[in-house]
């Protein structure tokens, strides 16, 4: 583990060095690689803790962890609200890197907080909340930075590469945690300290290598001054916002009155409503196939593996054929996944097909939706807009989970999955009607 911690900076910073990366990483800009590296390292840190937290709570502290899920909905709501506030602040002070860095630092500090919380259940709950708050605050400014660092026609691949690096970190995290535990035995606090050190390294990389503005902007972009990000030039709607002045709260409401942005946020919420949650999907698969319970965690591993492998190729595809078709294709894959859970296919084909399609869904929607959103949102309010899209999805997701739970009670799991598939189809149709008019020029231009 120490090897990987120590050697990472030696291998990664050169990749963000524009001098050399210009040839080696022609796929995306140095800033995107730097943000990807920060996400990778942060995810190693986060997943280390996720892997060990149950062990720590149950065997280390001898706590009853069932009490932890109760306030989940409240946290999700608070995180969603604060994400929008964070996005707005980033737009207002025009420092997305600072706000993102604050989010990363908050999560790093939370790792130490876990050590200091001791056996106090409310304190542990508060620390977990701070960790999630950090995650909520950083994602919108980070995605806004990726958008600003990338020419509009390459956004799909930029988000694809970023999400791939992010998932690689999520894959490495549990392995690093296991390595630490092999070295130290049941001293879970050593895992938290290591996790903190890894997270702190990510903050260092962010401070050193991520730029608020790309140093080599695309043609026509002034290198300094208060001018907004380079994609403005390609974004007709944003041109009029290029004049100075601080972003005001009323502009956020103005953003929601702006037709393309409003339609985008509406579509994001609707798509979120059609997504019932990983837990349900895996639980249904396990029950239908009566898979041994010890294999259960591998469902999530399989899905992430597909996501990891396909995020970049699908991002490239999105740049070629258009992002809207790819997002719609992703949700179609989700609908087919739900149909499989309800339908006649059984055995290993069901498991492989369902998990693959579920991974395709994530690869085709998570980053690509933000790539789709970026050019539509005015540059002045882009971080706020991305935060609105992400928060809208998160809240909708919470609602759909509750609804699916009720559907399961009323109609049984298979029928509920069938209804979810129908809901995906309906939402897909509405999304096409909402977004196709606004996006046709964009997709034509990039294809």
């Amino acid at each position, binding site marked *: 583990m120490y090897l990987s911690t*120590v050697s990472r900076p030696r291998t990664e910073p050169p990749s963000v060095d524009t001098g050399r990366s210009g040839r080696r990483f022609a796929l995306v800009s140095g800033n995107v690689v730097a943000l990807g590296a920060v996400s990778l390292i942060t995810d190693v840190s986060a997943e280390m803790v996720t892997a060990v937290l149950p062990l720590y709570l149950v065997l280390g502290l001898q706590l009853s962890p069932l009490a932890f899920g109760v306030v989940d909905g409240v946290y999700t709501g608070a995180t969603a609200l604060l994400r929008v506030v964070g996005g707005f602040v980033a737009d207002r002070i025009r420092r997305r890197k600072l706000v993102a860095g604050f989010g990363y630092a908050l999560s790093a500090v939370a790792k130490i907080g876990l050590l200091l919380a001791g056996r106090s259940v409310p304190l542990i709950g508060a620390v977990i909340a701070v960790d999630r708050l950090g995650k909520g605050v950083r994602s919108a400014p980070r995605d806004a930075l990726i958008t600003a660092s990338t020419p509009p026609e390459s956004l799909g691949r930029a988000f694809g590469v970023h999400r791939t690096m992010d998932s690689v970190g999520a894959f490495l995290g549990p392995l690093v945690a296991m390595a630490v535990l092999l070295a130290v035995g049941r001293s879970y606090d*050593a895992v938290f300290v290591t996790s903190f050190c890894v997270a702190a*390294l990510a903050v260092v990389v962010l401070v050193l290598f991520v730029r608020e503005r790309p140093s080599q902007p695309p043609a026509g972009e002034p290198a300094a001054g208060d001018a907004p990000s380079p994609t403005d030039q390609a974004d007709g709607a944003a041109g009029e916002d290029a004049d100075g002045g601080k972003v005001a709260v009323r502009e956020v409401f103005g953003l929601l009155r702006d037709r393309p942005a409003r339609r985008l946020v509406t579509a994001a919420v609707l798509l979120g409503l059609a997504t019932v949650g990983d837990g349900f999907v895996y639980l249904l698969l396990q029950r239908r196939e009566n898979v041994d319970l010890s294999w259960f965690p591998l469902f999530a591993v399989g899905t992430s593996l597909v996501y990891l492998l396909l995020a970049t190729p699908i991002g490239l595809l999105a740049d070629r054929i258009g992002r809207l078709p790819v997002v719609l294709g992703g949700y179609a894959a989700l609908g087919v996944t739900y149909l499989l859970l309800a339908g006649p296919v059984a055995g290993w084909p069901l498991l492989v097909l369902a998990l693959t399609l579920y991974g395709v869904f994530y690869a085709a929607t998570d980053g690509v939706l933000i790539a789709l959103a970026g050019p539509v949102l005015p540059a002045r309010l882009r971080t706020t807009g991305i935060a609105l899209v992400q928060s809208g999805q998160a809240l909708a997701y919470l609602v759909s989970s509750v609804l699916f739970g009720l559907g399961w009670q009323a109609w049984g799991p298979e029928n509920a999955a069938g209804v979810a598939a129908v809901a995906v189809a309906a939402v897909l149709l509405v999304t096409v009607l909402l977004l196709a008019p606004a996006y046709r020029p964009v997709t034509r231009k990039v294809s």
Partner: protein
Amino acid sequence: MTTMSTRAKVGVAAASAVLLGAVAAGYAAVAAEPAGSPAPPAAAGVGAVTLEPGPRLLTVTDRHVASVAAADPAGPRTVSNLECLRVYAAAGTGVCLGPENAWSYQVVVLDSALRPRQSVAIPGLPNRARVSASGRMISWTTFVGGDSYTASGFSTRTGILDTRSGTTVTSLEGFAVTRDGKPYRSADVNYWGVTFTADDNVFYATMSTGGKRYLVRGDLAARKVETLKENVECPSLSPDGTRLAFKQAIDADPQRGWRLSVLDLAAMRVTPTAETTSVDDQAAWLDAETLAYTLRQDDGRPDVWAVPADGSGAPRLLVPNAESPSPLT
């Protein structure tokens, strides 16, 4: 910062990585616990722990199965080499929830000389274990993380093994549920804390759904359960089969802790015990009148306590530095 050359930035990043790596390595070196399974405590005698019925009390001491004389529970204890996180025994049969390897745990059925007779791999982390009074039925509960639909939540898995027929139920979640007289199903149904009646078929357990926790009576052969009462967790049937010791969430809110209480099954009347500290355990009946349970000190170290089951008297410390009590009946 913006004026730093790329080489300087790489240097700073490398130096930070070395420094942070050193901090992590240094902390790990200090915090590491000695490799391998910890040896039984030196102060105690190592010897043959047996599950033969007798006036002794079985516990877990420093993760190892141990026994003490019922007449002198704080006195000298016999510690075995068997590593368990939770143990229980009846009629010469034992159950141990212990490590299978560094990452997973298993249920091991023990004979009276603590020799493994059978083992079942279990998902998640050990929580509860019971053997029916006849020694025939084994049950267990584990915590599993992350498969509830709240994503970050925990849930439980409860299984049952019939040592006579060899039948294993890896999760009660497939059983038909009758709630308040009506058929019921939900994705969030969870079970924990099984206790068997004398017929080795009917059992009591806790079922949780929709944020409420119910006492259920189950029928293993018929694969069904029905709810009897709300806010009853971790039931433990008295030797005469008339009462259930259980933990009752204060004001029905588990976040506020649990009161160890006793339910009279004929009258469905609840009597709180004199133990006012929150008890998070499935209590064991030492005899017809006395309950034993684990309490933890602020730093997490366990002690076994006892309290009269009829609500009278006061709790007393039974076995210091031990957990998971079980009479050897």
